[in-house]
């Protein structure tokens, strides 16, 4: 649950700084050429007086030349920490005998032994242990071990937002980093599942988890968000620069500032490893262009800092500030407009301890991606784990990965008995209003439809907060026909999975107050007159999902899927002459 921490009545949170906090992060690389580029990065940051966090890799801890370079460049106010990438070296092979290049996939005992050795060596060199570490993926088991063995570590880069299926394809089927389905913003990870935000202090690992880069929140749905991120080098990979210019990148930064108005804080992670600033990098046409764009990024941050809109801090400083503003159980929201194409597309993301939800306004506000967290599934990785390489937090809805537009999502239809329209056939603009601590109303603009020649105008709004419930309200603003004939159907089409191939759904049971239907790909359905709720019990996700009518519904429907379209359907039908309120509620199947 969210915690009241003092609000101005009817206004914004009293703790509000309306500020974006940015980390400028570097990784110390063992290669000489890379360190020359890193010298450029450090030099530009110091010229502008911006603090940086430099994360040392395993080989550089034992490389006197690399350490000497770092010693020359690190300035007052900068932070040093550790990064668990670039571990492929002879010393690692000799000491640990592991050929796996990615630490998140190592056997547990050796994984923690390497981390122990890095912390010990760091402490020996610098006289105190690190406060910040980073990895592309750090699972819950590893985070718990770090918390227990190395309490100095308070902030960690623990995941790459929405890197999974699309990055696997985009990287020529060779980048096996699967961590789809987590939060995009910093959070306190759950002790049981590092992609789920903790529900409370007892559930939380006491380490502030930050993402590796910010990502474009529309491209995170429909493309490779590693191409469209807070990384001046990555925009060259996406070919959206023209020489040293990339206006998109600065619209992108501005958009993260906007998120502070909705949350009271926002976070921007600029983590550019030095090879991206070399002309020899396979994505970089001209070294001077990428370096100029990197400099422009830092100058932009400096300018916004001077304008009072942004604060550049080290990772450790950010973690401390985050702990002042956010507690386990809090929710975060993102209202993202199309910064790349500058079309009118908008999406809204919510993340809390119970679920991550994505409303696509291009589809009338349909719920297009839904990751229930209440089951607290074990997503640990490595040879001892059930998932091995697959750390994706499972979805119940993912129109991009499984089922497409027509066979998954939560959406609504309206009929007059003769003609039917789907509310997801119209693009909306939305307003997102902060209504209290961790609580927001998303208001879709009124939308006009042609229902058999009669104009129909419908308005939808969604109430999002830190709880397990999403409330969906709809009302008719205008109808030229007989209002008493209108029926609204709230529909949830779901199928559990983590990738593009369907999984076996046969454990799922569909229920209403007096009926039950076991999923068996029969295509059968049951209608229940006057149903107050319809529900799916989903052992695969460890949750139940309920559509609950907050005003009387005419009927509910439970519908089994088919092998060819394996989504189950929950549906509530209403008399739409009055406004409707429907709640989508998740609960753990077992109490936590």
């Amino acid at each position, binding site marked *: 649950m969210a915690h009241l921490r003092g609000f101005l009545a009817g206004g914004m949170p009293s703790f509000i700084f309306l500020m974006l906090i940015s980390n400028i992060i570097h990784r110390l690389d063992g290669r000489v050429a890379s360190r020359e580029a890193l010298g450029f990065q450090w030099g530009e940051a110091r010229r502008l007086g911006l603090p940086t966090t430099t994360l040392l890799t395993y080989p550089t801890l034992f490389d006197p030349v690399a350490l000497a370079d770092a010693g020359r460049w690190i300035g007052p106010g900068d932070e040093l920490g550790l990064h668990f990438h670039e571990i492929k070296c002879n010393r690692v092979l000799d000491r640990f005998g592991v050929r796996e290049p990615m630490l998140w996939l190592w056997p547990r005992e050796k994984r923690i032994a390497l981390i122990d050795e890095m912390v010990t060596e760091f402490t020996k060199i610098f006289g105190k242990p690190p406060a910040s570490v980073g990895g592309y993926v750090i699972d819950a088991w590893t985070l718990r071990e770090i918390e227990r063995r190395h309490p100095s570590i308070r902030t960690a880069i623990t995941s790459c937002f929405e890197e999974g299926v699309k990055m696997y394809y985009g990287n020529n089927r060779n980048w096996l980093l699967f961590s789809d389905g987590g939060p995009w913003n910093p959070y306190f990870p759950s002790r049981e599942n590092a992609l789920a935000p903790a529900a409370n202090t007892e559930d939380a690992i006491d380490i502030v988890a930050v993402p590796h880069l910010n990502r474009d929140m*529309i491209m995170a749905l*429909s*493309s490779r968000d590693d191409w469209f991120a807070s990384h001046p080098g990555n925009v060259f990979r996406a070919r959206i620069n023209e020489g040293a210019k990339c206006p998109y990148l600065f619209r992108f930064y501005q958009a993260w500032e906007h998120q502070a108005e909705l949350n009271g804080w926002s976070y921007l992670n600029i983590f550019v490893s030095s090879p991206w600033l070399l002309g020899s990098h396979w994505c970089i046409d001209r070294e001077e262009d990428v370096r100029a764009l990197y400099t422009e990024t830092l100058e932009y941050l400096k300018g916004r800092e001077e304008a009072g809109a942004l604060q550049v801090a080290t990772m450790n400083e950010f973690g401390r500030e985050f702990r002042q503003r956010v507690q386990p159980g809090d929710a975060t929201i993102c209202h993202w407009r*199309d910064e*790349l*194409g500058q*079309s*009118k*597309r908008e999406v809204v993301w919510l993340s809390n301890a119970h679920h991550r939800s994505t409303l*696509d306004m*291009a*589809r009338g506000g349909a719920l297009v991606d839904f990751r229930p967290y209440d089951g607290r599934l074990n997503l640990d990785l490595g040879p001892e784990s059930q998932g091995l390489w697959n750390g994706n937090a499972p979805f119940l809805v993912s129109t991009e990965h499984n089922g497409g*537009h027509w066979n998954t999502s939560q959406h609504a239809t309206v009929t007059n008995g003769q003609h039917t329209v789907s509310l*997801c*056939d*119209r*693009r909306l603009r939305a307003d997102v209003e902060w209504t209290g601590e961790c609580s927001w109303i998303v208001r879709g603009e009124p939308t006009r439809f042609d229902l058999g020649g009669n104009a129909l105008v419908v308005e939808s709004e969604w109430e999002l907060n830190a709880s397990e419930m999403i409330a969906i309200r709809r009302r008719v603003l205008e109808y030229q026909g007989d209002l008493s004939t209108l029926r609204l159907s709230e529909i949830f089409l779901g199928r559990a999975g983590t990738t593009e191939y369907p999984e076996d759904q046969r454990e799922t049971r569909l229920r209403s107050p007096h009926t039950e239907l076991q999923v068996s790909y029969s295509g059968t359905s049951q209608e229940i007159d006057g149903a107050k709720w319809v529900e799916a019990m989903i052992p695969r996700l460890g949750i139940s999902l309920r559509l609950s009518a907050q005003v009387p519904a005419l009927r509910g429907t439970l519908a089994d899927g088919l092998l060819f379209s394996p989504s189950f359907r929950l549906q509530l039908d209403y008399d739409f002459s009055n406004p409707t309120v429907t709640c989508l509620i998740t609960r753990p199947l077992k109490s936590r």
Partner: protein
Amino acid sequence: MPDNTSAQKPLICPACFAREIDPVFLHFDPEDGGEFYCQHCGYTAKTRGDVKAFLRDFLRHRHGVGQL
């Protein structure tokens, strides 16, 4: 159904087509000055001609030939 102009067949999204996703129909937004848009990927265009030009050029260059 896609909300294209009634007299012509729906336009497909050339950007989704370039990603080898089967035809995703573009919607047309008569408000806001008119805009063709894809619900799937965010592609937008001001005119039918723009959409067709994208598709035509993509097809021509994809196969490395001057004429289809």
